[in-house]
């Protein structure tokens, strides 16, 4: 064998260029593709022809004012909770990495508790806060009660939803942010300190921006999860997307089409979020990227990831 190879090597460049490569065949992959294709076609056929889907009804309700109000509520809830969770999560993460145990132990307890409790349980709990505290007020020792308001006036279903879900989300975000902060090497901190940067400044300008590329991808996932989790608030009568759909089909009994309407909206919002995420990812890894992703490109690359071949 060895002599064969050396013989080839001596026959000159032209011969080498004439060598062809027979790609490895994947027969079983073709079988799998065929099966998947058949299944997808069958599914599409039944979806298109089964009258129970009631597509005309779906079309009628897709832009119904009540549904649109639900969409807005879902978006507002997700946005408010996400912002609160990012701020809260960052604070808790800074406490987690603090050398002072007086800060890190409470932060660990916070994460343990709020991440461990099911979202639905927390929602119902905050919704029923009035059972625990009838009044909420500010009491100053030696002065007396400053003000006092019935709990139910403050903790409306909307407020209960925001508090419950942002506490839980903060727990998740704290872990994500902490991992991001840990991913920035000690050398960066030391270099910044040696340039006279205060700890707060170096956190803001050096450590946080660098940790972003580790923080953003899981945060995008969290946001998509949160968007879907907000549908739980329909159980405490907050008028979100699912609640709107439910309130319509409670009247008309067109259950399936209205669930389809809600699903379409959830999917649409998630898709837009995904594009936004890839833009953010690009922004925080400018030093690596060569060209800005175009809108279409980023959608396409999120939906399909083509296998790159080493030989073209």
């Amino acid at each position: 064998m060895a002599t064969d190879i050396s013989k080839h090597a001596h026959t000159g460049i032209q011969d080498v260029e004439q060598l062809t490569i027979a790609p490895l065949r994947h027969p079983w992959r073709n079988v799998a593709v065929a099966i998947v294709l058949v299944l997808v076609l069958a599914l599409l056929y039944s979806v298109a022809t089964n009258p129970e889907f009631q597509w005309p009804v779906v079309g009628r309700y897709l832009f119904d004012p009540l549904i649109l109000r639900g969409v807005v509520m879902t978006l507002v809830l997700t946005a408010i909770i996400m912002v609160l969770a990012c701020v809260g999560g960052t604070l808790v993460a800074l406490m987690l990495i603090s050398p002072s145990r007086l800060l890190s132990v409470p932060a660990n307890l916070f994460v343990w508790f709020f991440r461990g409790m099911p979202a639905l349980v927390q929602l119902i709990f905050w919704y029923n806060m009035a059972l625990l505290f009838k009044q909420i007020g500010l009491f100053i020792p030696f002065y007396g009660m400053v003000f006092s308001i019935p709990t139910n006036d403050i903790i409306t279903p909307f407020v209960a939803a925001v508090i419950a879900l942002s506490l839980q989300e903060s727990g998740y975000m704290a872990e994500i942010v902490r991992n991001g902060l840990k991913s920035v090497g000690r050398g960066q901190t030391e270099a910044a300190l040696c340039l006279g940067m205060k700890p707060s400044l170096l956190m803001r300008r050096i450590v946080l921006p660098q940790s972003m590329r580790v923080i953003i991808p899981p945060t995008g996932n969290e946001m998509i999860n949160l968007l879907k989790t907000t549908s739980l608030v329909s159980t405490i009568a907050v008028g979100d997307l699912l609640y709107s759909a439910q309130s319509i089909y409670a009247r008309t009994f067109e259950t399936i089409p209205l669930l389809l309407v809600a699903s379409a909206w959830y999917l649409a919002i998630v898709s837009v979020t995904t594009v936004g995420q890839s833009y953010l990812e690009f922004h925080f890894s400018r030093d690596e990227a060569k060209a800005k992703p175009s809108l279409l490109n980023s959608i396409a690359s999120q939906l399909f990831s083509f296998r790159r071949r080493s030989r073209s």
Partner: protein
Amino acid sequence: MNHFERFGVDPNTMIHAAGVRKNFGPLEVLKGVDLTVSKGSVACIIGPSGSGKSTFLRCINHLEEVNSGLILVDGNFVGYRLQGDTLHELPASAICQRRAEIGMVFQHFNLFPNMTVLENLIEAPVRVRKEPVAQAREHALELLRRVGLEAKRDVYPRNLSGGQQQRVAIARALAMKPKVLLFDEPTSALDPELVGEVLEVMKDLAQGGMTMVVVTHEIGFAREVADTLVFMDGGVVVEKGDPKEMIANPTSQRTRDFLGRVL
């Protein structure tokens, strides 16, 4: 505030360290280091691995707190305020102000990867010294010209060679107009053919009158550029003096052994 007089130190001194001790838990790393570096001079520190060279450098700019002993930079403590006979620990913001006057160059460059070369240089002058951006840019470009990297101003550090990164790191330290520059093995992470360009920049700085403390394994550089050569071993300064003389006839056996191994 200048405490040199009170401690009987020549006013022409930049760094004065006396009896510096430092331990990490039970491990005593510095066991009473004395060193005086006068203004505008270059001290090179050599010594075997683990002898405490980096630790000593990091004590000078208070990245590490000393356990006992005295370090004055330009007549002042970096981490403390002297009142009567008591050293009061300073808050972080005050330490940072003083640390800004002491530049440091690291073995692994530690450039900020999320910023371009120019942004790396103007970050601290603008954010710490509150210099106007235009002025900081101008100064930064002048420094980049000095290290021969003006063309790379808008490039991100990861797209530079090691030698170029280290020259940017030196320029970044200079952008704060420091009184002293500390170098911790600035060429140890570089490919051999890139060492020269960095040493060239450092030689220029030395000739320009910059006070420098350089931990290095480049004995040739030390012999040529240093005013004082310091040999550290086991957490103490074993021998110090004129570099050419010391390399030619080391007085201590430990110095002789070490030089024999690295030359």
